[in-house]
């Protein structure tokens, strides 16, 4: 029944969608009186032209891998977890508590501990909407949106209250103890005098993120749970008939999803800021949606899409620095990517399918 070969579905359609998004973005840049070509060159130079640029690109990509995986896992069970933002906020809280109140002897132990706390907090924040969806039928999109706002307010409340440094006016926790410092790429790639990635925030968390991609791939395509999860996503009634409990699948999927979103915090909270500040997530939870859509919910696709968005983020920051194009241009590009790869998927797919059908008929 497949009209198109698999490569067209996996590679061609996302590619065309991205090109459409890129073309429209270029038009936007043109409309505000800048040159798209110069802008692209600046972005490539700024994000990929030096190890410093790469350090930022990979740092952002690490965030997006986690949130992208979070959205992807939920997509496989046909759940739309729009609450990655709030879950990442709570993950940050977990990391902060782990780093501040447990005396870690070594960073590796601190990393494991922070991972667990981040995942637990993120999962807990996803658990309530998941439970309400599974047991009371409340729409998970709406509840997770609400939980994003509640998370932001909760963090705000804690950072101006219980977690604030006494005497300080800034809504932030104390700086984490030095033992929790994660090795940055600068620490790791320092060969006899030549230092790579100097001053960039990319850190060991990137490898955790790549490992998470592999783990999620294995979970979805190589385990019984993953099979159940995908069958539930394809047809709820068929899954039920096969003895798969919808409650269990919704709960487990959302716990994994929330845990992944929460784990983003080891990158931005423990790895970069080394303390918890307001708005530490910076919209990465939402970018996860674009990343998952573009990566076709496959961990490898998510990795590539996250790298692309890491490039866009770092490149966008460079643009804002050197031209009059504001940083918000990246949000426009992100919106166009979501629009074309997500909502307008059929607009690209339908003509392509017709084309492939015509080609097949011509062959016969």
């Amino acid at each position, binding site marked *: 029944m497949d009209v198109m070969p698999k490569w067209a579905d996996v590679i061609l359609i996302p590619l065309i969608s991205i090109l459409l998004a890129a073309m429209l973005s270029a038009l*936007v840049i043109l*409309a*505000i*009186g800048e040159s798209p070509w110069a802008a692209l060159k600046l972005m490539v130079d700024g994000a990929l032209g030096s190890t410093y640029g790469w350090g930022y690109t990979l740092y952002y990509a690490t965030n997006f891998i986690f949130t992208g995986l979070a959205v992807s896992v939920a997509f496989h069970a046909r759940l*739309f977890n*729009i609450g990655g933002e709030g879950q990442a906020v709570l993950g940050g809280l977990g990391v902060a508590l782990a780093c501040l109140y447990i005396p870690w002897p070594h960073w590796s132990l601190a990393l494991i501990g922070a991972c667990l706390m981040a995942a637990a907090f993120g999962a807990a924040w996803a658990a*309530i909407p998941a439970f*309400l969806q599974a047991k*009371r*039928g*409340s*729409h998970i*999109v*709406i*509840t997770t*949106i*609400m*939980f994003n*706002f*509640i998370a932001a*307010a*909760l963090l*705000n*409340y804690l950072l101006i209250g219980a977690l604030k440094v006494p005497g300080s006016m800034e809504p932030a926790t104390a700086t984490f103890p030095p033992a929790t410092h994660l090795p940055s790429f600068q620490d790791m790639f320092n060969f006899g005098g030549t230092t790579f990635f100097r001053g960039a925030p990319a850190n060991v968390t990137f490898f955790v993120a790549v490992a998470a991609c592999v783990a999620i791939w294995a979970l979805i395509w190589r385990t019984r749970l993953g099979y159940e999860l995908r069958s539930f996503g394809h047809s709820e009634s068929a899954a039920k008939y096969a003895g798969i409990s919808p409650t269990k699948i919704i709960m487990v999927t959302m716990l994994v999803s929330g845990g992944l979103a929460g784990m983003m915090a080891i990158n931005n909270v423990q790895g970069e800021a080394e303390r918890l500040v307001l708005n530490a997530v910076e919209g990465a939870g*939402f970018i996860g*949606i674009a990343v998952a*859509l573009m990566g076709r919910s496959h961990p490898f696709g998510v990795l590539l899409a996250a790298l692309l968005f890491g490039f866009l983020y770092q490149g966008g920051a460079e643009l804002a620095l050197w031209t*009059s*194009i*504001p940083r*918000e*241009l*990246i*949000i*426009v*590009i*992100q*919106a*166009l990517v*979501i*629009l074309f790869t*997500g*909502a*307008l*998927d*059929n*607009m690209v797919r*339908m003509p392509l399918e017709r084309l492939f059908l015509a080609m097949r008929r011509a062959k016969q």
Partner: protein
Amino acid sequence: MDFATLLQMLDATLRLATPLLLACLAGLFSERAGIFDIGLEGKMLAAAFMSAAIAAVTGDVWLGLLAGIGASLVLSAIHGVASITFRGNQLISGVAINFLAAGLTVVVAQSWFRQGGRTPQLSGDGRFNPITLPFADAIRDVPVIGPIYFELISGHTILVYLALAMVPLTWWILYRTRFGLRLRAVGENPAAVDTAGVSVVGLRFAAIGICGVLVGIAGAYLATALQAGFVKDMSAGRGYIALAALIFAKWRPWYALYACLLFGFLQALSLRPDIITGVIGFRVNGQFLDVLPYILTVIILAGFVGKAIPPRAGGQPYVKER
């Protein structure tokens, strides 16, 4: 709390509830026709920017209002093409629209006005100004009724009265006209509507068109009446609160009014923490009041206070052959 303060609070409630109410009714039309719209926030923001920008350039707030509605309609059209014509995911389309508006408003504002993503301050005819209802000055000194009429009922901008008038009008359209019946039917069972020979696509486009106009007015109200100009992210989650109010109201117009007044009152309260402390004797955290609408909605959604059942065909694209 004395009588004057109470009136002040209720007055603020009305002003803050107006954008919520307009957006909520907008969402009501859309969702009753089976199109989920989480892009209310983005449309409101786009309308706020365009209305403030055009009002600032031309000095005419009515042109601004039209431009705001136009911007909102363009985003509505994108939503319609994505979710009706190409049967895409309505939620994803809504998310895209929210980001599109959040990004474009700032990019364009910076390009047009170079004031860090805001529009110039509006004044005079560039804003909707309060209108004093007839006899307000005359009966101002009558006890109780006078202040209520003068402070609370009179002295709002025309959009506030428009929003209030939209409530009975929406009710009338939905429950007393043929169009309304078909609109509700297309949100519950589009196949039946199609069988009756009425265009599902046409009805749904009409619904999101109405939605675009209403939420456009809401956005224009934000930038040209409640405040004097556009600032980055000025919708500040109001589109989502309107969605929450819509669920709270269980997709019914009169209840939408009550829900929006309640949420507007909460917003008014969080602006005046001194009053809360004065009335109940201890400090309530401002953040708590800000998120109370969301918490209440989650509780409603959980079904602890009556069940909120959305339109049955909501969120599903209609495929004729099925």
